[in-house]
């Protein structure tokens, strides 16, 4: 199950380290990372694979938003299919 993790907030030390550690603890593999800093705002987008993760998707989502609250960041995880659907003309929208 492919998903996109997005991290948005004020830039501080250790964002990548903490988020990737949390993903590692949940057996989620990071396939791609990109990050930018715009006017002190940190944005990181991670493409991840959750197929080895034992938690339900809602559990992953809760863990990440809890981490986000601790760090003062917005962390979302959404299935990749939502972005496929909205931003690609040719797409298989049959399955999440």
């Amino acid at each position: 199950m492919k998903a996109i993790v997005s991290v948005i907030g004020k830039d501080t030390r250790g964002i990548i380290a903490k988020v990737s550690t949390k993903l590692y603890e949940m057996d989620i593999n990071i396939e791609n990372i990109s990050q930018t800093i715009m006017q002190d705002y940190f944005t990181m987008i991670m493409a991840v694979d959750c197929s080895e993760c034992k938690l339900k998707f809602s559990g992953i989502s809760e863990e990440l938003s809890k981490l986000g609250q601790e760090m003062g960041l917005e962390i979302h995880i959404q299935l990749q299919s939502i972005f496929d659907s909205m931003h690609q003309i040719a797409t298989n929208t049959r399955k999440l």
Partner: protein
Amino acid sequence: MYTDREILETIDMVSHQHLDVRTITMGISLFDCITDDRRRLCDKIYDKIMRKAENIVRIGNDISNEIGVPIVNKRISVTPISLITAASGGHMEVIRTLDRAADEIGIDFLGGYSALVHKAMTPYEREFINSIPEALSTTKKICSSVNVATSKAGINMDAVRMMGRIVKECARLTKDQDSLACAKFVVFANAVEDNPFMTGAFLGPGEDDAVINVGVSGPGVVKRALENVKGDLTEVAECIKQTAFKITRVGQLVAAEASRRLGVSSGIVDLSLAPTPVVGDSVAHILEEIGLECVGACGTTATLALLNDAVKKGGIMASGHVGGLSGAFIPVSEDAGMINGAEKGALTLEKLEAMTAVCSVGLDMIAIPGDTHEDVISALIADEIAIGVVNTKTTAVRVIPVYGKSEGEYAEFGGLLGRAPIMHISKYSPSAFIARGGRIPAPLHSNKN
């Protein structure tokens, strides 16, 4: 693949522009429940609804969580009850059953306490329609509709005459709640069989045993996208089309996934822009963004025509099957911009009527003085229905004569239904016209001018 900017655009649409899937509505056919034994009929209806839709709320919430887009309402629509109870009677027992099922499943609304009388009505349908005020005033989640005209059959003016009285009775029976029952009752011309939106949802006779229809929304997203368009109206239309495409794709994804998980067929995506009273979720504000000082100004009908057409053009390629009402909704009480226009006096009932000729649905969530005569309401309905019949489109009237209140006061409903300033309506009498009854013949479909 897509870019980071596109990912952030989607996230921003949800967090700041109120992008949501307004409803997943499961249509359930009740034809196989028909029997002449009332008690057995109720048992069969209850069992079928519970069997098909038991998990709709949980599955809706799961999908919402996974894609990160809210699914605001989970609803059910059923075969028009007047068709199901024709052999047995017992519609009041059935409505208690429907209300109980709706409550236990935890859905927001159940639509289909409806009758299709566009050409004529049977004695039973007359009895059924007379029960609507009691049905709506004694239940919370049930919605009702009556189709009184089609472009092929003309307008059943005997039914239209009854509608004025039914609306007034709904208002009287819920006078302590600003005549709330009227907000759950709509009169249609050319009603569609696969509409997922309330109040007018029912599952038509030509539909599957159980089917998922999805209604998307997102006026805030369109407004935000237009804020960056400084060019001419062709560019405005292009921008709306592209935005509507993206919004509809979300609906398509949800429709496919919800129908798969619920084990029922996938019906249509209704690509309507449905406003809510929340700031930043208004159709009126889109028209103002295009260049009007206030909705209701001259130019309102033209801008709305552009918006409605561009939404359809953008959305239609994004979904395999587009249906329902599809277009821009213009309910007064549910749209902060429309409320503002009505308060200022910029938006009048007459202007609203003109607007309905170019967008989906019709005179929607309009509060009028409580002492408005029932014949005036019937004639208002007749006017709106005539627009639909002649232009071969769906039109509808959901009007609230607020009991005990007059022009300038407010009807307060709260939640998605919002609040409505009570508007001026002509007091000149159409009673002699309404008293004639009969049928307005179907219009000519050629030689159009």
